[in-house]
C-alpha cells in the first residue's frame, strides 16, 4: 500500500508514523505538506498527532481548513482510507469527516500516560486482529481528548457500531469512554491514543501493531 502522511505546521508524530509504516510494515510512505492541493496517488492517508497551528482557536480547527484538506475530504468521500491520530482525530471532527468534537480534558490536565483500551466494535477486520487481546495498552498525550457528541449522535455511533475503542478507565471525561471511532462506512478512523508509539518492545509494547495490521 502507498501511504501519505500529512504534515501541518506543529505536527510532531508524522515521522513516528512514517517510521512504523516503513520500517515495521514495509509500506511505501511519503509525507505531504499541508499547503499542497492534492494528495497524489495514495491508498491511505494519515493525519498525525501534534499541535497543528499551535492549537490556536480550537485544536485542529485551522488544519481542517488548510489547502490539502479539500483533497483529503474528497479522497475520504470516495471511500479512501483516512486515519487521524490524536490531533489528526481533532482535525477529522473539525472538518466533519467524523461526528462529534474533542473538548478540553475534564481534569484540565494534559494527560501523558499509557492507557488500557478495549476494542468495542464487531466490525472486521478489527475483531479478528484483536481477538487474542481483551485489552491493549497505547500511550495517550493530549489536552483536548474529551470526546463529546449529543445524545442523538451517540446513539447513532452505538447503533451503527462506529465506536472502535473505549478506555477501560476514562482519562479525559469522554462520553461513553470513547477513545476512537469510525464513520458509518468504516473508511475514516479517528482515535486519541497513539498506536504508532507502541509498535516495538523497546518502546514499551507492540500492541500498536494490531491497529496498523487492521488497516493493511
Amino acid at each position, binding site marked *: 500500500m502507498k501511504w501519505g502522511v500529512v504534515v501541518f505546521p506543529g505536527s510532531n508524530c508524522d515521522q513516528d508514523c512514517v517510521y512504523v509504516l516503513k520500517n515495521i510494515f514495509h509500506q511505501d510512505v511519503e509525507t505531504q505538506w499541508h499547503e499542497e492541493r492534492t494528495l497524489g496517488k495514495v491508498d491511505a492517508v494519515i493525519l498525525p498527532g501534534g499541535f497543528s497551528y499551535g492549537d490556536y482557536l480550537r485544536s485542529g480547527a485551522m488544519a481542517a*481548513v488548510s489547502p490539502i484538506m479539500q483533497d483529503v475530504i474528497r479522497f475520504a468521500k470516495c471511500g479512501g482510507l483516512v486515519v487521524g491520530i490524536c490531533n489528526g482525530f481533532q482535525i477529522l471532527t*473539525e472538518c466533519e469527516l467524523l461526528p462529534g*468534537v474533542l*473538548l478540553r*480534558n475534564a481534569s*484540565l490536565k494534559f494527560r501523558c500516560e499509557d492507557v488500557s483500551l478495549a476494542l468495542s466494535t464487531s466490525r472486521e477486520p478489527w475483531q479478528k486482529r484483536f481477538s487474542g487481546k481483551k485489552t491493549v495498552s497505547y500511550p495517550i498525550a493530549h489536552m483536548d481528548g474529551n470526546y463529546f*457528541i449529543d445524545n442523538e449522535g451517540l446513539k447513532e455511533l452505538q447503533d451503527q457500531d462506529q465506536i472502535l475503542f473505549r478506555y477501560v478507565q476514562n482519562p479525559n471525561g469522554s462520553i461513553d469512554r470513547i477513545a476512537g471511532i469510525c464513520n458509518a462506512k468504516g473508511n475514516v478512523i479517528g482515535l486519541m491514543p497513539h498506536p504508532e508509539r507502541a509498535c516495538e518492545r523497546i518502546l514499551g509494547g507492540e500492541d500498536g501493531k494490531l491497529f496498523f495490521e487492521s488497516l493493511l
Partner: protein
Amino acid sequence: MIAKVYITLKNGVLDPQGQAVQKSLHLMGFQGLSSVRLGKYIEVCFEDSISKEKAKEELKSMCEKLLANTVIEDYRIELP
C-alpha cells in the same frame, strides 16, 4: 469598521474551565454564583470599501466555517 464576534458554548456542553474559574471565585469569597462559562471574543477589522451588509454575510460564513464549531458553540455578531 470593527466587527465583534462572541463565541459561547451551547447550553448543556460541559465547561470544565468555567467550573474551575467559578471554584476559584468562590474560594476568593465571591458568593452567589450559579455558574461561570468561558467563551471567546474576536475582533474582525474590515476595510472601508466593505459594506455593512457584505461584512455581516462574510462574518456569518467565517463563523460557520472556522471561527465557531457549531457542534458545541453558538456565535453572535455585532456590527457598529
